């Protein structure tokens, strides 16, 4: 009996204690809220609306909305951002399915899925309901964005687009594309052999193999792998014949087999290494190059990419230097399907759509997009008569040191044109590098309709496309590292059969028809 009384007594004390603790917390919370409120009222002039933004790119180099450009954006819009970077490619899919989207989503995938009124505000809604204004936005950018939704509205505007006129009038630089970077100090040791053609390149690989036996001549780790070689051989992900209107998926394009045979030759001769190729993580892939494990390295043509790589290589080996291989293809660079690559969405869960509208109004204006890439007008740049920004010495120094993200932090510009970015990277830059970039402009033509025509992920053709890409990943590795010619031939035949079985023809037919529709949307 005594035990029961004691137990009851202790239970009551425990419940009362918990209750009191809860009350005390609640009281503390409410008093904190009151205090916060006071602070907000007192400092109403500097009051910021904070929005949560999810950046669906695990490689994103910054997770802080800080720096010269973010400060400019904060000042102009009164909006601060609390940033979360994706940890995996699947994270956004889970967020969509669980309905737990943050205020803003900046993403390069799931664009068709998010372009839906159930998940996100359309930009027209932001204009109607929250006073947003997108007057400076071009028709082509809107048409591209509309192609991702089924209701004819647009829920984002993709960045890095440019019209055909913009490309033609571009004063310097080239569109971002796969390239090859190399250790120029090692080329000095080899007597700087000329590399003007693919044949020259192969000869230099052989020279590297014999001269630097501890190094892999051509590092293919990371994202870009064999894409530069493919481009040089005229094989790209989208092959579109502007004259006939016919479309080919990469593996069904003429020249694909020859390209794979050359890559296989590279493997058999020891110019490339399977373990490097297997590494798909961009950072890990680059690490091989930083560590001095390879002479040539497949990467992306961008000035910032170049400076970051050069600085990292030199941090490991101060005597090393890095250069970009010029375009060595016989014809012009491959056609582009550049219709932008990422966009900002305002989710239905957004805690303050008015603030989001304010932010986007600024970022999508001419003033906002230029500030988002180039910084403060009059301090960081002045606009030249030809429309090319002339950057301050401080800006150029920061850029040459590969510290643009750390100091200026242009990564929070959710809308900019491809030309804005190219000028940011190259204007006032080293003439030698500008000349190399210029080689990547030869005959460039952009067909945004190729990207617009791509089927939505949930459609039959979308599923086929995903499967084709999966097959490519798997079979290209097998083709490139086939142990003999016989193995190559049998793997190639197997790959082609698998492509057919998966619906390659259906996909090519769909794209050919869909491109016509996309061209209509673009008024072509």
């Amino acid at each position, binding site marked *: 009996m005594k035990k029961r009384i004691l137990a009851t007594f202790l239970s009551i004390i425990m419940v009362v204690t918990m209750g009191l603790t809860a009350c005390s917390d609640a009281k503390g919370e409410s008093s904190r809220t009151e205090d916060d409120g006071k602070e907000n009222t007192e400092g109403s002039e500097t009051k910021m609306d904070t929005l949560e933004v999810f950046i669906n790119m695990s490689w994103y180099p910054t997770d802080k909305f800080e720096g010269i450009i973010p400060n400019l954006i904060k000042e102009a819009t009164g909006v601060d951002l609390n940033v979360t970077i994706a940890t995996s*490619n*699947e994270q956004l*899919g*889970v967020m*969509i*399915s669980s*309905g737990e989207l943050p205020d803003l989503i900046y993403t390069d995938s*799931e664009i068709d*899925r998010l372009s*839906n009124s*159930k*998940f996100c505000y359309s930009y027209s809604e932001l204009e109607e309901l929250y006073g947003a204004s997108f007057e400076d936005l071009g028709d082509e950018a809107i048409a591209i964005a509309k192609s991702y939704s089924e209701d004819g509205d647009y829920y984002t505007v993709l960045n890095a687009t440019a019209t055909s006129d913009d490309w033609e009038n571009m004063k310097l630089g080239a569109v971002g594309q796969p390239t090859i970077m190399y250790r120029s100090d090692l080329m000095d040791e080899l007597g700087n052999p000329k590399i003007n053609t693919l044949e020259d390149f192969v000869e230099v690989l052989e020279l590297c193999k014999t001269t630097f036996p501890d190094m892999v001549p051509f590092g293919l780790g990371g994202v870009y792998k064999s894409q530069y070689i493919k481009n040089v051989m005229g094989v790209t992900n989208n092959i579109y014949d502007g004259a006939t209107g016919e479309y080919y998926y990469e593996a069904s394009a003429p020249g694909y087999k020859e390209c794979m045979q050359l890559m296989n030759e590279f493997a058999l001769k020891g110019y490339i*290494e*399977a*373990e490097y*190729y*297997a*590494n*798909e993580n961009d950072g890990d892939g680059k690490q091989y190059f930083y560590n001095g*494990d390879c002479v040539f390295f497949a990467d992306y043509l961008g000035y910032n990419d170049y400076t970051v790589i050069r600085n990292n290589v030199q941090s490991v080996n101060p005597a090393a230097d890095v250069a970009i291989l010029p375009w060595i293809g016989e014809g012009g660079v491959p056609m582009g399907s550049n219709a932008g690559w990422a966009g900002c969405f305002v989710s239905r869960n957004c805690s303050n759509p008015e603030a989001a509208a304010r932010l986007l109004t600024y970022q999508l204006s001419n003033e906002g997009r230029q500030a988002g890439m180039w910084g403060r007008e009059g301090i960081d740049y002045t606009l030249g008569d030809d429309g090319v920004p002339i950057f301050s010495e401080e800006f150029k120094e920061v850029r040459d040191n590969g510290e643009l993200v750390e100091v200026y932090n242009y990564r929070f510009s959710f809308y900019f044109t491809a030309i804005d970015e190219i000028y940011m990277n190259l204007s006032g830059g080293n003439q030698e590098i500008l000349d190399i970039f210029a080689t990547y402009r030869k005959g460039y033509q952009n067909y945004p309709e190729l990207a617009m025509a791509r089927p939505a*992920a*949930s459609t039959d053709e979308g*599923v086929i496309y*995903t*499967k084709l890409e*999966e*097959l490519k*990943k*798997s079979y*290209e*590795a*097998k083709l490139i*590292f086939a142990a003999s010619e016989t193995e190559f031939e049998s793997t190639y035949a197997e790959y082609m059969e*698998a492509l057919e*079985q*998966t619906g390659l023809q259906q996909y090519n037919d769909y794209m050919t028809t869909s491109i016509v529709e996309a061209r209509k949307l673009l008024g072509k």
Partner: protein
Amino acid sequence: MSKGKVTGCKYFHALKKQFSLQIFVWVGLIYLFVFSYLPMVGLVMGFKDYDIVDGVWGIFTSEWVGLKYFKEFVNDVMFERLVRNTIAISVLKMIFTFPMPIIFAVMLSEMRSLKYKKLVQTCSYLPHFISWVVVAGISFHFFSLKGIINTLLVNTRLLQEPISYLSDKDLYWAMAVFLDVWKEMGWWTIVFLAAIAGVNHELHEAAAIDGAGRLKRIWHITLPSIKPTVVIVLILAIGNLFGGGLSGSNFEQSYLLGNSMNSETSDIIQTYVYEVGLSQGRYAYATAVGLIQSVISLILILNCNFISKKISGSSLF
């Protein structure tokens, strides 16, 4: 007075008597219901043309498509590879990783030095607490071309050229099994050591007096005595055969150690479901594929339970 009423009353009385124990049972049952049985409602998705934009209710309101996704999976060019790899890796793990903890437990139990036994036991089960992400990182440092193993083998002239353990498709299965044994053997050894500790010492003493050597005592006393434990663990392992048996590590291994060079042997149904379901957002299709694997697993566990009951008299249910 009906007989049923008396039984019901007795039942209620017994329930009242076991009230505090019943609470524990009910907590477990509620947990199982909420996290294991309730989500099964979602399996209907595998038979429907469900899109995530339709929300949760879309699972029930979307169009019925029957076996469309099951047929799609069976006709997929990846089907053969996925099923082959899933079965091969799982069976290999069952063959190599299941007996290892038993053998290791017997060896440990026969050790004379208690301190050394404890040291070995502790060292062997510690890897269990390392996540597979870390194990993948460690294995990269050990097994890459310029890793410790290759450097050692090449420097000692045991190898002429380093072996690409992590990207060679022919080595993936062996790597998966080896890492699984290294990571989980010590942990499962604890279960069997506990079973061995329960074996009557008098049996060993009597057998020793009768002249039985150590191996004979292991064979005729230790192993038969722990047979029920072995059978239960075996049934549980077979129930999770496609997940990776005792360790349930198939997914993590394939996801972390798989790459485009070894995908021919490392792609399994679970990673496929993950890719298709989450990366591509094809929830209905992924559900159908996952259901196929679950059905095969259920058939396996029922068969194993039946066979075990017939042969040894021990079974789960």
